[in-house]
């Protein structure tokens, strides 16, 4: 009876339908899981900036400390993009006629801020505090990567909640002496006594000692630590 209603080719469709549905579902799941993940969407985000400022040159080759420009990083929630004045501290003496610096000079002259494009952009419902991390000995490099090797800054970590919690649950491997937070090349081995060998036990002990010294108990289950 149904044969009269449905043409013969629909039989084939009926046979293929489970495969199509199953495959389609799997396809969507895969796309959503990997395509929409923080790693895919956020890592590698590298917007163009209005000024061709190079961290590689300033922080890397010239060795200017991060805190020369981002000087509120250990005092406030925001590391803060430096005011134009900070650029001009040097650049009213050197490279005063470079075309690349024209927007900076113009900003200083007119008082109009430079419109920088934000690279590391947390959602507005997440309240991150830089000072709480750098004063405890979490290095800049842990979240921002080797900025000293970037001409144009790019996001290297997903900055997702799971990624934050990885460290909050187990902070020891990411801690360093607070004096070394801006050091891009610091390794735990640097802390060993001369003439000794660095063992995984030393690594653990260092982490534990650093945690103990600064009384570091990162909130793990306290939602309100970051969301309020």
């Amino acid at each position, binding site marked *: 009876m149904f044969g009269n209603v449905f043409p013969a080719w629909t039989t084939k469709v009926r046979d293929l339908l489970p495969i199509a549905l199953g495959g389609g579902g799997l396809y969507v799941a895969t796309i959503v899981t990997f*395509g*929409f993940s923080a790693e*895919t*969407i*956020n890592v590698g*985000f590298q*917007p163009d900036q209005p000024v061709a400022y190079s961290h590689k040159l300033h922080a890397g080759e010239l060795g200017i400390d991060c805190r020369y420009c981002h000087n*509120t990083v*250990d*005092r*406030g*929630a*925001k590391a*803060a*993009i*430096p*005011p*134009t*004045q900070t650029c001009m501290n040097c650049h009213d003496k050197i490279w005063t006629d470079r075309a690349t610096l024209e927007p900076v000079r113009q*900003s*200083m002259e007119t*008082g*109009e*801020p*430079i*419109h*920088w*494009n*934000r690279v590391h*952009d947390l*959602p*507005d*419902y997440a*309240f991150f*505090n830089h*000072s*709480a991390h750098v*004063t*405890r000995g979490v290095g800049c490099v842990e979240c921002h990567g080797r900025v000293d090797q970037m001409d144009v800054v790019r996001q290297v970590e997903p900055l997702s909640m799971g990624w934050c919690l990885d460290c909050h649950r187990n902070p020891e491997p990411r801690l360093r002496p607070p004096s070394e937070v801006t050091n891009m090349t610091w390794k735990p081995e640097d802390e060993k006594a001369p003439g000794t060998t660095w063992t995984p036990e030393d690594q653990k002990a260092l982490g534990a000692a650093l945690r103990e010294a*600064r*009384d570091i*108990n990162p*909130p*793990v*289950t*306290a*939602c*309100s*630590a970051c*969301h*309020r």
Partner: protein
Amino acid sequence: MQSNPKKHWRSLAELDGSPEFKDLVAKEFPGLADQDIGEMDGVTRRRFLQVMGASMALAGATSCRWEAEEILPLTSRPENRVPGKALHYASALQRSGHGVGVTLTSYDGRPIKVEGNPNDPISGGSTDVFAQAEILSFYDPDRSRTPLQGGVATDFAAFDAFWDAHIKGLKGTKGAGMAFLAEPSGSPTDSFLQTQALKSLKSARWFEYEPVSRDNELEGARLAFGDAYRTQYNLAAAKVVVSFDGDLFTSHPAQLKHNRDWAAARQPNAESMGRMYTVESRFTTDGGMADHRVPMRSGDVPVFLALVEAFLAEDHSLALDGGVDRADLPKAHAATDAAAQKVAKAIAKDLANNSGRSVLAAGPNQSAEVHARIHHLNAKLGNVGRTVTYTEEPAAKRPTHAQAMRDLVAAISAGEVNTLVIIEGNAAYDAPADVDFKAALAKVEHTVHLSLYANETSALCGWHLPRAHAFEAWGDAMAWDGTHLIGQPTIAPLWGARSFGEFMATMIGGNMPAADKMIAKVARVTGKDWRKAVHDGVAPKSLLKAKTPALKAPSSFRPVGAGDAMEITFSADTKVLDGRFANSAWLQELPDFMTKLTWDNVAMIAPATAKKLGIEIPVGSTANEASLLSVTVDGKSATLPVYIMPGQAKDSIALAFGYGRTRAGVIGGWDGEGDQVDPVGVDVYPLRKAGVFVAAGSVKPTPGKYPLAMTQEHHLMDPIGMAGVAERTGVLLREENLEEFDPKANDHFRHAVHHPKLESLWEEKSYEGNAWGLSIDLGACNGCNACVVACQAENNIPTVGKTQVIHGREMHWMRIDRYFAGDMDAPEMGAQPVNCQQCEMAPCEQVCPVAATTHSDDGLNDMVYNRCVGTRYCANNCPFKVRRFNYLNFHKEFKDPHNEVAKLGFNPEVTVRSRGVMEKCTYCVQRINEKKIEAKNAGRPIADGSIVTACAQACPPQAIVFGDKADPTSAVSKLHNNPRAYEMLAELNLKPRNSFLAKIRNPHPDLAMAAPTDETTSHEGGH
């Protein structure tokens, strides 16, 4: 104590115990099921699916990453400025010529929160609702943005072109034909500028007008002393306070100090605890705080005062010249009946026994004779120099405001004025009924109005100029006690605007010094001292000298009381004042501390008067439907909804000014260009003659009903609402009389409720480290609402509008439950602020299907907005009814470019919630985190008292204390162990972090009356 508890009730419907009321209590969100769902009105299922389909399709089309953001650093950053970190600046506000010292919290250059300035001796760090709501007014999109000429937008250049030429002409004639109409200013610099401007305009005349003035007080001082002096009360040293027609804690410019001082004097202690009596017509805070409150028509209050005097003479030989014998007082009168006699006798006894330790005070509605008599009595009782002192009165020389208005209109009518400059104020709206200001204004050729808003008066003026807000300009003001407050600008004017000083400079000419230099000159401070004065917000020199004025011989005092006609009393509204705050949605939606009414004004009548007029108490499903009453005074009528107010004096109708505005803005009412907005409430100024506060009138019920948005029956935590637990649920607000109170009996109030051994249904967690807790002293709380608005400002809490309030959707995280106890004609009142109790065993958390509300390590009950899917199970399961749900997107209007400025007022530390999300008090977790991070960065423990929640910071009597309960030395721990401490609904094993201190009343032993008992909540045996 619980063997004979008072029956507490919140509304007449509850007292009545109607079945409709019981039904209402059983519903979590009353009226929800049987109503439309707001803005989805008219949206069919089919249309909804279409919309949803479209948004799903669009979701794929947008970029994978969210909207890119820009960062705009300053070109050069000022010293001490850390982006994203709050700075605090002292500033000074003014209201009716009285300074209010405030501290502004500024984020990245934007003021976002007002706190009291601890250096201002009146504020002491606390604020009232008006100061808290000032942020909303500051960013009000309806504030005037451009000068108007004949109602058409123009610019300052156009005005200056006209004005410069015009002033030149006026100077030629020494200002002949020029007049100023200003609202009173408390700024010494403004006075200085006024004097300077009038130097070259010698013939110009200056008038000051304020609709709700304290002129009776000034006149009273003139009667008593021959000159006006200002009375300063020191309630901290008082043991007995008698308030005649409430004012001390309600409308007095020093009410913040009064509240703080009196809370200190009210520590329950048999030797020193203060006692308060209030005799008044309208239920005010003074009445709420009183141990004995006698409701009485305002016109009868003087008779009661004479009765007290008569008892002082008769029983204690403290006769005052000009007094009247008890036998000669009016007979068969409400002020001299048996009950009144008993109270008056007790008051006289208390006053005589506490010579030098009492305070008598009269409200601004009472006549000059009453004020004068009070001065004599305070002297007679030895209070002067101890609890009552005097200073100079800066307004001593000016005529009364009523007279000034009459004089101005007379001058205009006589053709003596061709240029009228109006500074702030809104006389076209609030001028007395018997003075036709509007007609007079129309006769003046050149009119200029400098004001924050283009209001009713601006609409009738030739020119309107936007005035700079106090946050935008240098300013100073005088606090009630003479402290010279200094205010610095914290932000450049949002739109072009002129300050009073800048405007006056256009008349003075020559090289005017900069505003700050001028204030420094007036304050007589220089250099470092000036910098300190700006930093502290207070200049070192007081502006008022202490005085010890000599009393004149008292004149005869033979009051006869109000006549037979219905008494109509007028007062400034508790929320919008004289109308100036009508466009503040925070204040309009604030439930009045007594009526719990939002978005309206009413005719308040006593239950007995209602009965007489045949008006029924609205209950149940029609509880919002108020009857209408037509009130007539001298031939002028207004029709208002009726509010039957327990404790209102019989045959006295209380009306509040400030409503029925037609040029306030999109909140308060607008009939000008653009979208029309109906006025909020009814304007009662047309009923009121110059200088009158109490009038004789008539009333007539009018057919029809009017919906009122009251919150008193929302969010009930009612014993009867909880099925089957009536026997084991004690009263929520616990209280006791001083006589019964035993300070040594610890946990006495905690054990007021019998319950079986508490056992948990699930594993109990224990918390280490900080344990944040809040303590609220119910003995000190007067229900003033400052905490409610402070919380709203701090936590970006939206307003929802009248319709939504009627649906029970108001969003305040903190509410104040107002309870009455006893007889509905003369009840006692108690206020209980209720916020999230941060239960350690939180029932809301157990029912959330998505773990959007969970506990933090330090025991806070966190709410994660982004996880919330809006099931509302948590609100349903919360026994305290403190969770609020965003039924609609209440921030939607900010998307309009005209309104975008209002976004600047948000606290950037707190998420702005959207539709479909549950929210509630967080204990100001953003403040906790800030201090915690600061302390940890510095490697030190968090100091007790360094974290202050917004509610605790604002509280005038300092009833709210926040801190770490885990630290046994913290203030909150000590209060937690106070013999008065108890937790609400502790019998449900919730382990709330909030504790309350029970209210202790201190009735006069001679007046102890048997309280009516409530059988359902009393328990046999007691403790």
